């Protein structure tokens, strides 16, 4: 997986690390059970502080996407084929999605464009075959 960040960009680096890993999981590039580099090594590769990578990994752990173990290291815990998430998580996500869609509408983006953007993003994700057909 190629992980790119903008160190001088407006988004905090730990958030960028978290976002890129979530995208890689959704696209099937980091399936459940696959390993991510240890915190220190990823920090070296990105040229950032250890604590920054640790914060990004910890976010993913709190979201249930990553398992951090002393021996096993950082391992992806869930992916698109792991079944539906907790109902509580879905409710939170739906609220965040509404806000995101509202931002687009408030900026005057047509509904058709919003839907087209959503479809383009979804087409890039690696949903299990059965679920996609359904």
């Amino acid at each position, binding site marked *: 997986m190629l992980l790119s960040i*903008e160190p001088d960009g407006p988004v905090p680096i730990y958030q960028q690390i978290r976002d890129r890993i979530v995208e890689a999981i959704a696209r099937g590039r980091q399936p459940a059970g696959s390993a991510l*580099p240890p915190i220190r090594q990823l920090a070296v590769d990105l040229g950032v*502080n250890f604590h920054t990578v640790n914060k990004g990994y910890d976010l993913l752990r709190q979201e249930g996407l990553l398992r951090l173990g002393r021996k096993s290291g950082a391992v992806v815990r869930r992916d698109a084929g792991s079944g539906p998430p907790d109902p509580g998580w879905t409710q939170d996500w739906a609220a965040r999605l509404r806000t995101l869609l509202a931002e687009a509408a408030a900026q005057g983006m047509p509904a058709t464009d919003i839907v087209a953007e959503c479809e383009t993003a979804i087409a890039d994700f690696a949903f299990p075959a059965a679920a996609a057909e359904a």
Partner: protein
Amino acid sequence: MSTGTLLAAVLPVLAVGALMCSLPAVTRPTLQFGVRVPPERAEAPVIRGERRAYSWRTAAIGAGFTLVAVTVQGHCPSWVPRVILVPELAAGLGCFWVARRKIAAVKSADSWFSGLRQTVVADTRWRTDPPRFPVRWLLPALAVMAATAAVAALRYPGLPVHIVTGSGHRVPKSAVLALVVAGQLYFTAVYSGLMLIVHRSRPDIEAADPAASTLRYRRFLAAFSRALLTMAALIDASLLLIALPDWQVYRLSGIGRALPVLPFAAGVLLLGAVAARTGQGGSRLNGNVHGLAPAAGTDRDDDRFWKAGLLYVNRDDPALVVGARFGVGWAPNFGNRAAWLLAAGTVAAWASLALLGAAAGM
């Protein structure tokens, strides 16, 4: 003045001149004289002009100092030709800084990075499927060391208590034998240690072509590691050949006295050939497999972390070594305390060897 003595005095000066002249050719196109430039500016008029001017200046410096070395050889003490390397290197550095200053000025005035998405790219497979250290390529160096130890053990009983070395000093035989083995151990340990560190450090990934540049870096690292470990074996062989006349195995005269230099020279040529073929980080290798992964933006403008365009100092970067800014190789991160310790340890070991050698009159 023998031909061997003349060559020994002049060749290093000539080699340094050629090296300085050729460095821009093996450096990445996006790193011009220590200045990071976007790929679309790599052929900017100021860069082409400064590259041309640098080539002419360093060629003139190399030729001039070689002429000086030829002239003074035989008329001055033997250390003078060696000291010539210092002003020659300083003059080359001056040419580098002139070119760097001019390119940086145009880059700043025209805001080359303005509006570009500057990114840093990591390839997680570099850690989950890391490149392997070529352990087998360490065997030639170990074999030469073993051969040296065997010859030393065989010769030791038959040698007089004190040996008169090539430089005319009377030295205890144990010191002569120990110093050669210690020298071989030093070079083998430094070269293999450096490559072990480099294998654990980060690859040079170009944001404009991340997947292909990672593959090229893997090929570069494999080739350069092998060349460097071969170089360690050849240096060990040179040390053995230097020691054998002192150990009364054979005697060299005339042009034959240049024999011990041959393995070292072969190693330098090999490293130069590999560097010329691969370029820094594999930038001259074929296999521009564009389309493996989309461009992730432009490499981050990191000039502020490179002091004088050559020394990397970044306290926020945990890396111990990073890709060199000019030429082929790696540079320590002086913002990392461990890099200072590493540099100090290497210099201290070298100084100890040199002092021991001087104390023993070698």
